[in-house]
């Protein structure tokens, strides 16, 4: 009870998901919905991590392979993959991940700084690391992940 109250007042909720054998999380406030993978329409001259666009109830939604965006191996999307529909700046983007694993409530004290050994991209995008029940979860800053979108929206 005390814990719950504490979490409600001080904590923030995060959505954790898996890409390969790693776990990441983003602020739940920026997540609009989670849906299954549907084939995307490829776009010419798009960067590799942009898989294309899909129809989300009449809205043309770009799909980003988060794995590739984070510098890991390109995903090979299957029906088991999920798309996290997230708000980034004024735009809405679909993030392709392997699976959603958890919804976490954490307080700022739970978040540790990103270690120095992290790669360039992680330094830019990672807001910190969470240690929960022996798992390591990397907190991602979506705005930093798509700086172009952010600047266009501004």
């Amino acid at each position, binding site marked *: 009870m005390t814990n719950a109250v504490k979490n409600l007042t001080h904590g923030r909720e995060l959505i954790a998901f898996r890409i390969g054998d790693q776990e990441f999380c983003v602020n739940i406030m920026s997540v609009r919905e989670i849906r299954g993978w549907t084939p*995307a*329409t490829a*776009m010419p*001259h798009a960067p590799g991590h942009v898989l294309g*666009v899909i129809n989300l109830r009449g809205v*043309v939604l770009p799909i980003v392979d988060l794995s590739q965006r984070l510098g890991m191996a390109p995903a090979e999307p299957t029906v088991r993959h999920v798309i996290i529909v997230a708000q980034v700046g004024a735009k809405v983007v679909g993030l392709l991940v392997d699976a959603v694993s958890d919804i976490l409530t954490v307080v700022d004290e739970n978040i540790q700084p990103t270690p120095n050994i992290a790669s360039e991209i992680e330094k830019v995008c990672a807001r910190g690391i969470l240690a929960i029940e022996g798992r390591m979860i990397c907190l991602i800053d979506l705005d930093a992940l798509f700086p172009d979108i952010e600047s*266009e929206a501004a």
Partner: protein
Amino acid sequence: MDMNEIKEIFFQECEEQLAELEGGLLRLNDGDRDPETVNAVFRAVHSIKGGAGAFGLDDLVSFAHVFETTLECVRSNRLEPSPDVLKVMLKSADVLADLTNAARDGGSVDAERSRALIGELEALARGEVETLARVEAPVAETPASPAPDAGTAIETPAPSSGNNEGFQPIPFSFDDFGDEPALETADEASCVPTCEILFRPRSDLYAKGNEATLLLRDLSRLGDMSIHCDMDSLPPLEEMNPEEAYFSWRISVATDRGEDAVRSVFEFAEWDCDLEVRTVKDEPLATDGGDPDEAPMQPVPFDLSILDDDQGPSIVETESPAVAAVNAAETATAVSQAAAAASRNTAAATAANAQGAAAQTIRVDLDRVDRLINLVGELVINQAMLSQSVVENDSNGVSSINMGLEELQQLTREIQDSVMAIRAQPVKPVFQRMSRIVREIADVTGKSVRLITEGENTEVDKTVIDKLAEPLTHMIRNAVDHGLESPEKREAAGKNPEGTVRLTAKHRSGRIVIELADDGAGINRERVRQKAIDNDLITADQNLSDEEVDNLIFHAGFSTADKISDISGRGVGMDVVKRSIQALGGRISISSKPGHGSVFTMSLPLTLAVLDGMVVTVAGQTLVVPLTAIVETLQPEAAAIHSFGAAQRLISIRNSFCPLVDVGKILNFRASQANPVEGVALLVESEGGGQRALMVDAIQGQRQVVIKSLEANYSHVPGIAAATILGDGRVALILDVDAVVAASRGQSLKPEISLAATG
């Protein structure tokens, strides 16, 4: 609603009134002498002036005032709306529009020009006054001064106000006061002066909705009041006319606010009563000079309680003559109302029916309409998806579901059409703007031009209208500046020195066609050809048809004017016009007859929300190519394909060679060129008049698609104009034909586009 919102409404209204004004003036110019046209023109200016006054827009008010005064002369048939007069008025309408814009956006106007026009307008009005003075002398003088009365805050009802001079000298009749001097200046003594008032209403006072009781009430607010009602003229009941006024009052009010304050109480009534006001020192009002037998007047306090909603007890209890009088006055009114009810006059109702009801309109936020359009777009897509999945799952195809679906499809289409119709607007406002452009450029070039517009009620999507103004303005300028000859040349050629520019709009097969025709000299093909050779657009020995030469003017940077004038502008030529028309999904062409003029024909989609497209397959992807861009489709034969240089291929079509563009390759969908023989070629017309054959793998069919933005959540994609959603629920990209063709000239799509994006 606050004042800012009302101001916004005012400016919207101004736009409508300005359009009305210009339209009316142009009709007058065409010889229309319908009084209602003049009235409408007058009302438009009057209305702008009225609103502008409310917002303290003094410049607008003063100009409108002078304009209105001159229009009033026309309205009262004292000034003939000759072409010269109308020329001044049309210019004045332009200045009024400028002043309105300046008032809204804070810009400045050409003060010199508006001053000059004020002078011209005043001269017109003055001329009228002079001629008038000879004919019928004593008519109220038309104010020729630019100083606006309406602009000076609020007019006070004080009789001394200059504006009221015209109706001040009302003769009073003072019969009842006998030989008393009419007005007597008050002795400037101490203590509160007393005003003595004789007030004898005539029946007109009641007929015009004034009430003696209310006037007495207002009077009582000035100070302590005593009142005497004279009922002597009240006839016996059987002779009483309920419409007549039988009472008069003698009132004395102790007030230090002077006679003016007293008179102002009677401001609305003084026409319909005998009124005498004079100030005495604090002495009681002398009795009516004459008859000593008359009962001495008993000053009584004026009881206002009868004016309360719940009248009753207070009246019954008071027996004073004043109250009785007031009461009687009330009764008289009531009687007159009751008596009148018997013979009901139906004139009003008849008038109402005769005129018929005006078209009912409501104002709706554009956002709301757009939301509706979006939703209907979704409906169309969903319906298509549903149909497709039913067809896929139902092989026998005769189920009731299919019939229901067909109905649904029809309904959806109808809903879509109706919704699109909401955004549809007549091209009138744009056409009207053009008449001003013509006037201005005619002035600058010293040419005499007549603009004729036809089909201005043709409707098209608002977005198209908004984007039409710019290219049209440019074309009109071109037509007058380059198309029409000078009056001297025209006369020498046996033409009317006044040139004609004709702007026409009409619907043709689901599109709007706008034609701009001038009766000028036509395209000087020799010069165009020479210029094209000079600019390396063609080679000197190249054989071109007349049509091809004419179309050279659409090439970038092409300008046929010997000297570059301010009007057509440097470097902004017909290529820009063509590009903006194409950006709207439209096409433009020219046909010209030497000595007889040129005709530009534009064909535009009726809406930018949907598009007729050809659905094609390219490297496993589904793309939509706008139908407007496609001239024809052909199945290439191996013999028609010719390699040219390192990677270029040409296709021969009826003895001419057309570059072949592999869409799949240029969009990076595949690394190497596909075999043209296995695909289909779409012959497209692109910017600059050149044709290209776009290679696609297969054609799936034609259909109307709902246009979706890619930029909303992503960004601009080179070579792609927009996206749409097809019946299978998947996103398909709409090809930007011009960008693809442009890229085929260079080496790749990307650098050119990104360059364009940053520039």
